[in-house]
């Protein structure tokens, strides 16, 4: 019997029980953010780094008061960066902001319409960040060769997309995701494109170590309820993967015995 106490996974020498990683964007307000993140059970939570709004009201809550770094592993991202230099600069500012915390989510985007990653810039930024002692969790395409390269240069987790960021289309290329998982010796986390609970289960059934999502929860009609659904979907998918599914057959296979029939 597996449970969350024994079935932990490791990123950069830290152990985590929750395989659901969540973002903090697109929520209506801080109460909704807090409620959904609490319910998700996530231990790793992403944030973006942006200019401080200098006209901010003094009593407006700061995001890091809602998701305190002593309770969550804060994962600053480089969302919105379209070149390696701005991604590296963002990570360096994040490290200063978070008192030397060096775990980052690298994403270098190529195109506003698809938000697909720019792989050449991503590889360049990953090398520079690793040389600067960052622990890099990297957002990438579902290309198994690139995923392996990113692992080889020292990324601590590789995070292929299921589908474009915010699209909610679910896993478009399960065979590639499975190949990435089979080849990997670092955690593989599906990042982006999950739309509903079954998508998250499929990612886990393919053997992924976790799923990172934001829009699927934040844009649900009831984000807190969807956070709960996602938590269960991740656990169900993980247990199904560990249990080992039955083989698929083209035809029926009776569940009740043929022998002993009296009719």
């Amino acid at each position, binding site marked *: 019997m597996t449970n969350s106490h024994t079935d932990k996974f490791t990123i950069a020498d830290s152990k985590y029980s929750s395989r659901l990683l969540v*973002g*903090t*964007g*697109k*929520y209506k307000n801080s109460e909704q*953010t807090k409620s959904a993140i609490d319910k998700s059970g996530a231990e790793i939570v*992403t*944030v*973006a*780094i*942006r*200019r*401080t709004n*200098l006209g*901010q009201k*003094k009593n407006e809550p*700061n*995001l*890091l*008061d809602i998701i305190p770094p002593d309770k969550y592993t*804060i994962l*600053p*991202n480089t*969302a919105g960066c379209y070149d390696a230099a701005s991604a590296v*600069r963002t990570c*360096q*500012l*994040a490290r*200063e*902001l*978070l008192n030397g915390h060096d775990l980052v989510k690298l994403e270098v985007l190529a195109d506003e319409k698809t938000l697909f990653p720019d792989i050449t810039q991503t590889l360049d930024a990953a090398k520079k960040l690793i040389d600067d002692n960052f622990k890099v969790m990297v957002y990438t395409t579902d290309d198994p060769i690139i995923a392996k390269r990113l692992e080889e240069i020292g990324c601590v987790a590789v995070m292929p997309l299921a589908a474009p*960021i*915010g699209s909610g289309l679910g896993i478009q290329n399960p065979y590639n995701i499975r190949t990435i998982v089979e080849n990997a010796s670092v955690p593989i986390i599906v990042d*982006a494109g999950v739309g509903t609970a079954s998508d998250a289960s499929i990612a886990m059934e393919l053997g992924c170590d976790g799923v*990172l*999502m*934001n*829009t699927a929860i934040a844009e649900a009609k009831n984000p807190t309820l969807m956070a709960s659904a996602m938590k269960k979907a991740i656990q169900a998918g993980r247990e199904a993967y560990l249990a080992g599914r039955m083989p698929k057959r083209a035809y029926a296979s009776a569940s009740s015995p043929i022998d002993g029939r009296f009719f």
Partner: protein
Amino acid sequence: MKVLLNGSSYSIEDNCSVVALIKNLELNGKYAIEINQTIIPRSKYSNQKINSGDKIEIVQAIGGG
């Protein structure tokens, strides 16, 4: 003197330090500061002088995925 603060022109006293700027802005919460694309560590805020025309960025964590 004038500086460029988070992309907008901002007037501060001559020879102002980073500490004085933070006080002026009444910043709360966690933030990081960069002057002319060099990060200023928190430990250097009191000694770090700001010069006319400096490009200052003050950033924080906000919601993101």
